[in-house]
């Protein structure tokens, strides 16, 4: 399913071929490495292999072994070394082969990387983007399906970003690589090669700002807030709802930290109803965070209880019926929307 609004207008996009999410990421990294001779990319199997999913395909040939490092299977050392390089003037892209493995480098992320700027009172900043494939729906089971963004949202000092479209994937990744702050960048592996969302990307350099949500579809009856692949569930639900005579606004927050609260509140001022959808476990997840922001700061805009549709508080099981049981779905959203507007 394609995104309705705002599409990259044909006017700004001059390239002839629609590009998928993976290609967009690949271009972002390669172009930034080209523009910034002090940039290094590192990760497991990113060089010779070109990455488990191919995001770094061709990078080694282009930039050489000094700048494209095939790391030992040591997530802690990957993050720590990236921090050291950054401390000494580099910009670093550090890939987690799957975002699930970030748990193995966790201490270096939350304690070393996240706090460096703060504890040096600004002397040091750490331009490191830790990125990797995330998300469920693909049968990856417990350890290849995680969306663990909440851990990092609760660890001050980290940007947390999650694009849903090729345009954003490229523009946000470039922005993060220039932002100067440590970032955890969540990519949806199920979107990597999804042809339906391929887009024609601008030929010229561009970035997408952090902390600016995108309204993927305008509507007046209910606001659906999401990010990552769940944006498409929301769009599909909105389509269903249209058939039922309901107009849903779909907001893709794109960056979690910083969060664009204003766009959400503006939407609520119209719709007075909100459903937040994400595929992470419910408790202490980002869906709850959005609901807290809304209810503590824009309480009066609400005519009905806010709703969150998240993964159940379970791991992600393997076989299809089990996996789908615990995850958000179009059906769950439609059902909740109908209940909410009737409230």
């Amino acid at each position, binding site marked *: 399913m394609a995104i309705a609004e705002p599409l990259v207008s044909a006017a700004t996009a001059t390239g002839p071929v629609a590009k998928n999410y993976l290609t967009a990421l690949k271009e972002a990294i390669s172009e930034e490495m080209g523009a910034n001779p002090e940039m290094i990319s590192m990760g*497991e*199997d990113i*060089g*010779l*292999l*070109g990455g*488990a999913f191919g995001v770094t395909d061709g990078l080694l040939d282009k930039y050489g072994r000094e700048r494209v490092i*095939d*790391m*030992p*299977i*040591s997530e*802690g*050392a990957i993050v720590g070394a990236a921090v050291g390089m950054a401390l000494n003037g580099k910009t670093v892209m550090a890939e987690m*082969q*799957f975002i*699930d*493995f970030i*748990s*193995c480098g966790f201490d270096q992320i939350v304690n070393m990387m996240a706090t460096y700027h703060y504890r040096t009172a600004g002397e040091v900043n750490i331009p490191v983007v830790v990125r990797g494939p995330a998300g469920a729906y693909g*049968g*990856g*089971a*417990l*350890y*290849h399906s995680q969306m663990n963004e909440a851990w990092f949202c609760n660890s001050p000092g980290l940007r947390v970003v999650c694009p849903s479209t090729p345009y954003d994937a490229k523009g946000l990744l470039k922005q993060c690589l220039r932002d100067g702050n440590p970032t955890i960048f969540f990519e949806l592996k199920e979107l990597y090669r999804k042809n339906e969302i391929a887009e024609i990307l601008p030929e010229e350099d561009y970035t997408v700002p952090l902390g600016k949500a995108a309204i993927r579809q305008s509507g007046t009856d209910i606001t659906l807030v999401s990010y990552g692949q769940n944006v498409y569930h929301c769009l599909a639900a909105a389509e269903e709802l249209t058939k039922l005579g309901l107009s849903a606004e779909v907001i893709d927050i794109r960056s979690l930290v910083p969060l664009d609260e204003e766009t959400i509140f503006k939407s609520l001022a119209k719709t007075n109803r909100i459903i937040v959808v994400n595929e992470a476990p419910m408790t202490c997840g980002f869906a709850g965070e959005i609901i807290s922001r809304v209810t503590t700061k824009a309480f009066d805009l609400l005519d009905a209880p806010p709703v969150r549709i998240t993964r*159940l*508080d*379970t*791991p992600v*099981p*393997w*076989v299809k*019926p*089990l*996996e*789908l*049981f*615990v995850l958000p779905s179009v059906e769950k959203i439609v059902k909740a929307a109908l209940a909410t507007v009737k409230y």
Partner: protein
Amino acid sequence: MEVRVSFAPLTELMSTLTTDQAPEMSMEANSEMLGTAHANGRNSETRKTISSEPRPSDLLSREDCLEMFRQLYLARYFDVRLIKEKKRGRLRGTLYSSHNQEAVLVGSLFGLKSSDWISPIHRDMPAFFLKDLRGKWGEAERSGMSIQEVCAQVWGKVGSPGRARDNWSHIGSKAKHIIHSTSMLAGTIPVAAGVVYADRSRGGDAVCLTFNGEGSTAQGIFHEAINFAAVHKLPVVTIVENNQWAYGTPVSQGSPVTDIADRARGFGIPGYIADGQDVFDVYDKVANAVAHARAGNGPSIVECKTFRAYGHGDHDDDRANRYRDQEEILMGRLRDPIAVCRKLLVDRGFLTGDAATAYVAEGKSATDATNDDFPPEVVDFLNQGIEFAIASPLPDAAEAGQWVFKEAE
């Protein structure tokens, strides 16, 4: 010249070598070629070494030797058959082939007691049913999983020991003394240490074999766990399957030491090197390590030199032909563990006449191998598992919400 090596039979591969590279494709060459290259480490000895002390494998009966040979076929057939099933679209998930590495599994598991524990990882699927299989092919109840359970897991059915909640190699069984791995490499080693600590506290003498790729030895937890085990002299034997590659990264980029057994030296524990293509050499080295452990002398590392036949996973077969050197692939696959074993059994007079060459599975890729290349009991054994798996239902969707916590009793 592009050759799709990983699925080509060896004979075809040979033709891609220039003359001076090409070894004789005789049994002789087959079993010797990489012998020195692969097994020249400190603690290693080739089979030809003349020593006055008998090796543990010298004491194996003819029956046991033939059983090990049969187990090699079984492990190979499991892999071959699963590749076929996968290609037919019958299986989900990634298949990490153990082709060419079977001697590591068979050789290290064969000498264990039923009470011992193991923790296999992604490339070790056959380990689940090879554990405690020795002489018990027909027994439903043994320490080790039935082929039915293993197949139900692969097919994602409710008959899996974990009711197919987690995928492929991520199974285990407390009852059968098999530790469950997460995907996080080397993550089972501390668990193994805890398991045997508990066993020892009750007067047990169980040993735990943990399996790891050479790339996984770079994980911090590998170090933490072996360090702890060494301080407490816990009977943990870490089998390192050094198949030269960690996904797309050669061992030289992941480890500063070529012999992974040298990792042991940082802990003051023994590091053994085995010829991973020779099931008896693996058996010998692991027997030493296990004896050392069981005697209360603590952990050790057994590095088995081997070579990954295919891509990292089945999704990687094509790319693996690009990032790996054609000759390297060929050399790495020349000493097929079935062929190596066959020759040794012939030499020892345990295999004679037509029986010696009745089933020639070696050197054949999954595409080329047929059921005729394997002993019928091997094919039957697996068929029973697959039949069970196919008949087993999918778990109920609503099960997905269960067993997050143990309920109060």
